[in-house]
């Protein structure tokens, strides 16, 4: 079969090739996330680095452990596992004990990817599944936000908790802009939202840098622009309508967009090609669904933030969306039913 000098080369389509490969896409996304990650380290200190490292390590260990013996190196080298670990780490609070972040990364790959049959077969975004697991497992640690200390590269007290042990008596805990808005009716200034300096998950501090990464990905053609655009537009529109009813009670459109994990989720997680629809029409439906769910959970639900659940729910609807938005094959009649 493997003749070293074939006399006849047989190819099947496609005959034109692009350098658009899985490792390249994964590398692009990691590069796009670097500025926001750097900002997070500036605001939250070394604690953020430790959490990110632990979650990436957890993902890598799971990836290595559950791969077939023959392809152990390959599954790590395509970078998708590492990206899952990084994305998960960015959604975690900076003061989270490292062992929890490790467990989260491990669970992300196990439950989010391996049991479905590996990359490309999973129904849910692995990083968000890992976060949902952590949120349900350690609800207190996952909603304890340390006070930000720009430029002080310290480690949060909670980071170094021993495995299976509590984070210990916490010092001062801060709050997220969404939490402040929901429970204390306090509005955080937009400039702080856009450039960081707000409490919250590691990756959601700097909205502007997340957007910058998104533009880079769009230029490199690594993401379907329809999804983030439709999510953000829906959220802004929903917000605007609510504000027209009662400006006191409901969040303004820009606040809605820049607060919480919306930008991180809309640009880097909802666009995961495996778990979002492939058709353009489907992408619009998917994005609008995420946007509506986010606003419903934030405004009318019991939780301050709903990006994670919104994306996971729409992930579940993706196969159905794909099925009903199949384009008509040229030359075929539209289905009469």
């Amino acid at each position: 079969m493997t003749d070293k000098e074939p006399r006849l080369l047989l190819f099947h389509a496609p005959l034109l090739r692009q350098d658009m490969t899985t490792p390249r896409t994964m590398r692009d996304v990691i590069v796009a996330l670097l500025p926001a990650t750097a900002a997070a380290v500036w605001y939250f200190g070394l604690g953020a680095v430790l959490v990110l490292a632990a979650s990436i390590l957890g993902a890598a260990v799971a990836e290595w452990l559950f791969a077939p013996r023959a392809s152990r190196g390959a599954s790590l080298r395509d970078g998708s596992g590492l990206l899952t670990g990084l994305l998960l780490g960015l959604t975690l609070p900076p003061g989270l004990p490292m062992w929890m972040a490790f467990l989260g990364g491990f669970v992300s790959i196990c439950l989010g990817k391996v049991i479905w049959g590996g990359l490309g077969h999973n129904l849910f975004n692995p990083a968000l599944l890992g976060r949902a697991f952590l949120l349900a497992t350690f609800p207190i640690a996952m909603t304890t936000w340390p006070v930000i200390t720009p430029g002080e590269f310290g480690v949060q007290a909670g980071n170094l908790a021993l495995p299976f042990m509590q984070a210990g008596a916490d010092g001062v805990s801060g709050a997220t802009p969404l939490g402040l808005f929901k429970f204390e009716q306090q509005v955080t200034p937009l400039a702080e939202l856009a450039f960081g300096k707000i409490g919250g998950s590691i990756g959601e501090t700097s909205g502007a840098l997340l957007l910058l990464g998104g533009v880079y990905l769009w230029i490199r053609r690594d993401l379907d622009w329809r999804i983030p655009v439709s999510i953000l537009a829906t959220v802004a529109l929903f917000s605007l309508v609510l504000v027209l009813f009662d400006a006191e009670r409901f969040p303004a459109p820009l606040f809605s967009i820049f607060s919480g994990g919306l930008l991180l989720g809309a640009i880097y997680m909802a666009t995961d090609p495996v778990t979002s629809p492939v058709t353009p029409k489907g992408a619009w439906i998917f994005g609008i669904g995420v946007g509506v769910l986010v606003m419903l959970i934030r405004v009318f639900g019991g939780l301050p933030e709903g990006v994670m659940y919104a994306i996971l729910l729409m992930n579940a609807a993706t196969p159905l969306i794909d099925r009903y938005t199949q384009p008509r094959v040229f030359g075929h009649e539209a289905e009469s039913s």
Partner: protein
Amino acid sequence: MKKNESYEEFLKGIWRDNPVFAQVLGMCPMLAVTNSAVNAIAMGMATMFVLVGSSFLVSTFRNVIPKQVRISCFIIIIATFVTIADYTLLALVPGVHKELGAFIPLIVANCLILGRQEAFASRYPTKLAVMDALGMACGFLVALFSLGAVREILGDGALFGVKLFGDSFEPWVIMILPPGGFLTLGVILLFFNWFKYKKDEFLDDVARAERSGADG
């Protein structure tokens, strides 16, 4: 010989035909009440009482019950035992009864029990039927307990209410909630199947080696 046979019927329920790990029966109580070891054992004991009692009666009267109404008769017998178990638990251990709640009456609907009546007790002599019921109930109890123990240890840092890791243990809240039941059961089934797979592989290897030995 006779003794061996009934012994065999007892053992098969615990491992080879384990109602949970091999037959995947009785999932409702399995997932619902295994958030602590005590609840799991109480549920297992109640199920054992009902299963052994009804198997005994069904097998004893298997020649009297006409087949056209056998299912109704089984259900009447099972429901009676369940009611007895329900009231006894309520009187003796009200705390556990409150935790188990609606799942005690729901033993009636446990397909493990009706399944054993239809598939075994109504066809075999009393002694074998009782041994089979005991084996199945023990297998169910073992499964409930292993799930309950894992969930209580991780979810509460305790076993039978005794703290294992000291006060600073961080409980895995999800393990006490319903998703924890699904996750734990999934992992246990994974290991059970992995073990069976490895065993079959090993037996295949042995058989092949023997065959090639015989050929040569």
